[in-house]
């Protein structure tokens, strides 16, 4: 009946192929995790072994910290840039989005150049400030990574806010504080949730930065890498991957239900 039924028939094999391509590896991953010598209890082991649990908690913690910091900084700066026209605005925007072009490894490298043993800060303070190899260094690296992404989302959302809403609030006697609290923040909320979810997911999985800073930072992707490559403990690596994936996926799903379908579209 429908005239493009033929075209749809052509699409079908592609869909099946794509699904298989995307789903098969995940099934395989899950099977691998429970086919080690521990069987299903490997997931119990993840939760009870301090090394794994600590890594998981640390990863979630630093990711949350980065998400919150990136949201606060980017929202403030984004609002300012979206609402003010001045000379050099275009240049500032370009600089702010430059980090988008650099991968995680380079970002880790940048952090070492600044906060490493031969880094800028250490030179200035003559040997007192080394933060590159700590959790704080990782935090800064991830933050560096996240700010431009969140910033661009906030600015796009700000441009879509109806300026009449703000004017209405002001005509009713609202000062700047109330305009931000009652009009701008509720208007930006969906975009902030979406951007935050992306920032969180990115931080959860960031490997390049962590690996470059290396040494003794135990974040989950690092542990997975170690288990797999160095210890050849495939089952545990798979189990940890499944846990990491589940946590991130849950958060993305929650964010999407808060902010409509656009949440992961920014990903």
């Amino acid at each position: 009946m429908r005239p493009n039924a033929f075209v749809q028939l052509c699409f079908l094999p592609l869909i099946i192929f794509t699904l298989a391509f995307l789903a098969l590896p995940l099934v395989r991953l899950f099977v691998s995790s429970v086919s080690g010598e521990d069987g299903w209890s490997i997931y119990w082991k993840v939760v009870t072994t301090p090394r794994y649990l600590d890594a998981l908690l640390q990863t979630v913690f630093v990711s949350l910290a980065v998400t919150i910091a990136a949201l606060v900084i980017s929202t403030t700066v984004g609002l300012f840039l979206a609402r003010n026209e001045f000379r050099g605005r275009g240049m500032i925007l370009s600089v702010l989005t430059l980090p988008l072009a650099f991968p995680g490894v380079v970002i880790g490298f940048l952090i070492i150049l600044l906060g490493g043993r031969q880094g800028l800060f250490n030179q200035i303070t003559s040997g007192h400030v080394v933060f590159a190899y700590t959790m704080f260094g990782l935090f800064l690296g991830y933050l560096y990574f996240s700010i431009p992404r969140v910033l661009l989302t906030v600015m796009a959302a700000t441009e879509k806010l109806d300026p009449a809403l703000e004017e209405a609030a002001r005509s009713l006697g609202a000062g700047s504080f109330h305009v931000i609290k009652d009009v701008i923040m509720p208007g930006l909320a969906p975009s902030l949730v979406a951007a935050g979810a992306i920032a969180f997911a990115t931080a959860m999985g960031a490997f390049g930065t962590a690996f470059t800073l290396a040494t003794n930072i135990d974040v989950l992707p690092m542990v997975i890498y170690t288990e797999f490559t160095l210890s050849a403990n495939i089952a545990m690596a798979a189990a940890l991957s499944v846990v990491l994936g589940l946590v991130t996926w849950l958060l993305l799903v929650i964010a999407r239900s808060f902010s409509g379908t656009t949440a992961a579209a920014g990903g």
Partner: protein
Amino acid sequence: MTLTLKSVSKTYPDGTVALQPTELHVEPGEIVSLLGPSGCGKTTLLRIIAGLETPNAGSEVRFGDDDVTNMPVEHRKVGMVFQSYALFPNMSVKGNIAYGLKMQKLGRDAIEERVTEVIRLCQLEPYVDRRITALSGGQRQRVALARAFAPRPRILLLDEPLSALDAALRVTLREELAGLLRRFNITALFVTHDQDEAMAIADKVAVMSHGKVVQTGTPEELYRNPKTSFVAGFVGHAMQLEGQVRGSVLEMSGGRLELPRAGDDCDVYVRAEDVALDEAGPLKATVESSTFLGTHYRVGLSGLGARTIFANHAGQKSPALGSQVRVAMHPSALMLLPREDDRS
């Protein structure tokens, strides 16, 4: 409260003159409409009065005895109804209406009391706890009005309050709005590009063109005694009769038409309702088109000049297309207006 504007003007940074020096006076309780085509500066004028736009230096805006020219919008105590209504989507109907009162830091009871009063006045009782997105266009308009009116503003400013509604609703809501504004008993100023809307709601209409108020008066004054061809054309769609004025006679291609007075420097205008198909009429014309509109036929006549002249013909039958008819216009219905460039 009276509203007085003294030489208020506005030039944008890029040099565009949005508003030429304008005077306006609105009496307490008066409902005044700013009427004009899009781009004539009427919205700019409204936004300057609200405090959302800064006028040029030398402008003066007075609310009663209070010079508010440099007062920011949040302290002006104006009620503003926006074209898009701009209701807060994150608050309920009640939350929207209470917002202005909360900003005045009134007590809970005082807010509750005033909100209930305004909701009753605007007949919004059934919708109090609804989300804004669950309201129809007409309901949104009433909420926007209630929200603006609740904090007892000194003046109510409305920016094309009916233009977001579809045509079928607009006429009904026009009468509802007129009724509410009168019940509020408040000084109000509203912007519109629709002459019917302006006439139906306002006590007084200020017609604007190219950044200037060209005539102010009651709807009857503007309709019966327009001072410029722009006002005649915009209020009541007067048509220009092309021809040569010789003394008190207009010589047209279709014949000679008697004028009410000599008008050598004037253009002659007439409205479709004053053009009669009359066998004894002095003018000859050809029927070009005919549209039945219920109370009358709108008959397009050619041969009276380069442009088609329309006649509202109230008979039971329309003359056949292409037929020759004779046309009369009573001298008292002809408007002689000074010849001028419309753009000036």
